[in-house]
């Protein structure tokens, strides 16, 4: 596992030496800050128009869950930009040949790559949740839904990174990798919208496959194993596919 840290170290360095990281960071913080402001202003306006509104709903919690939902959507757009180069760029620069002829196991390489993408996206998440911290400072939101939503977003981002890693290993072209990752995740996303409310039959299956459905459950503050298992299997599945894809690359190239 020591080698995974070597890879993580190098990947994060690479991220912060490339303009993409700074563009993503700036864009993400700008938009999420702006949205937080809007959600907050909207809530305050409603509150002043309707004084009976604040009972029995916890307004800060409402703000946090709206904001969390939005951050999830934003990840959908920015996640592919973070993962697109992971393998595609190595293949294009032929540096994969260095990695695969070095004394490092494929598994260590894949985990190293995976966690560096995850760490980067977690940095984004933590930075945007500074807004939420302020709310905790000035008011008393419900803790459980906030934590649930935060956990949900972490798992959601982790799934996105795992899918993105797999897609990136399939091509030498970063743009293609980004677009395919986005489309695949969007399709999974839509599964939930099309199969809303039904939990049986093929609609139920498709609905279960959608990360959005499980994210929403967690964001309501309902933390059950069912959703966590879903995310963990999603992540493992695509990490396994990445492993296979890198292996097959050796046979093909």
């Amino acid at each position, binding site marked *: 596992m020591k080698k995974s840290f*070597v890879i993580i170290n190098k990947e994060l360095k690479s991220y912060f030496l490339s303009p993409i990281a700074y563009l993503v960071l700036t864009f993400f913080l700008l938009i999420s800050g702006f949205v937080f402001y809007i959600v907050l202003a909207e809530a305050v306006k409603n509150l002043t128009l309707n004084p009976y509104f604040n009972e029995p709903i916890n307004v800060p919690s409402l703000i946090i869950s709206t904001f969390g939902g939005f951050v999830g959507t934003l990840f959908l757009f920015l996640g592919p930009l973070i993962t697109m180069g992971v393998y595609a760029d190595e293949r294009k620069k032929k540096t994969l040949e260095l990695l695969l002829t070095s004394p490092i196991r494929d598994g260590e390489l894949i985990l190293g790559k995976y966690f560096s993408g995850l760490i980067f996206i977690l940095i984004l998440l933590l930075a945007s949740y500074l807004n939420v911290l302020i709310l905790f400072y000035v008011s008393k939101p419900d803790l459980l839904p906030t934590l649930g939503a935060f956990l949900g977003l972490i798992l959601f981002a982790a799934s996105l990174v795992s899918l993105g890693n797999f897609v990136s290993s399939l091509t030498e072209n970063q743009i293609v990798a980004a677009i395919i990752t986005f489309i695949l995740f969007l399709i999974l996303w839509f599964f939930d919208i099309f199969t809303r409310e039904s939990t049986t039959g093929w609609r139920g299956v498709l609905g279960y496959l959608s990360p959005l459905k499980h994210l929403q459950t967690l964001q309501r503050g309902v933390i059950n194993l069912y959703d966590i298992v879903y995310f963990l299997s999603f992540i493992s599945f695509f990490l396994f596919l990445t492993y296979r894809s890198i292996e097959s690359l050796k046979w093909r190239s």
Partner: protein
Amino acid sequence: MIEVRNVSKSYGNFLALDGVSFKVNKGEILGFLGPNGAGKTTTMRIITGYMPPTNGDCLIDGKSILEFPTEVKSKIGYLPENPPLYTEFTVREYLKFVGKLKDLGKSDIEDRINYISEKCGIKDVLNKLISKLSKGYKQRVGIAQALLHDPDVVILDEPTIGLDPVQIREVRDLIKGLGGDHTVILSSHILPEVSQVCDRILIINKGKIVAEDTPENLTKKLKGQTRCNLILKGDGEKVREILTKYSDDMEISGSEELKINFSLKSEEDLRPKIIRELVEAGGVDIYEFSTERLTLEDIFLHLVTEENEGRE
């Protein structure tokens, strides 16, 4: 040190390597020679464990690359056809990463970087971004990367490509200096380069080994072969009669002034004998008698084209 056992590799229906076997002894420098697409890179990729062979096995120090990949890989330094460089890093950052990847300890890394950058002539550019370097420097960083962890086995795929003549000589000397301590395989399609550096040459074409010997022996093999050009006037029939005694592949052109091209296959120098005989036969005026020695280049072409004709 390196043993390649009956290795084959096919890409779909295309057979890139067809039962290649050879050995390289410790401290030896082996030159891998062949036209583009002959299977040099494929062989090297199999030895370094980048790709598995379809058939056969490859042993480094008695250990199979397929069974002990990480252990064997740590003994190999490899410069692929395209130097694998992270262009957003500086040379120092890049070499540090490679050092860690290859299990060098923290204190060793600094020492090795200093030592190797001196040896490869990249000391001045250590703090420059790799993307800003010229092709020659990039190639040398690639070589430095392969030698950084002081591997037992060094495999260099076209190490002098993209370098200018002065740099080529430097790299050549560098490689020569590796022999003895390191076992080296280097590939090239440029003959003089290989013949000057290597202890042994292996010529490969269309996935098969067509010749394997020291540069001297390879040259010696065709040393008896000398191509002669003769320009004379006189009785063509008589001349032909005399020359057939010495050569079997004579070509005569021209009508009045005869131009004859033939080869001599003998350790003994037959030229004075032939000239004397021609003159004594009478009625023949010799205008020119010249010879061209076959070089390693010709041997190479000879082997490679012969093989091609045999296949088609």
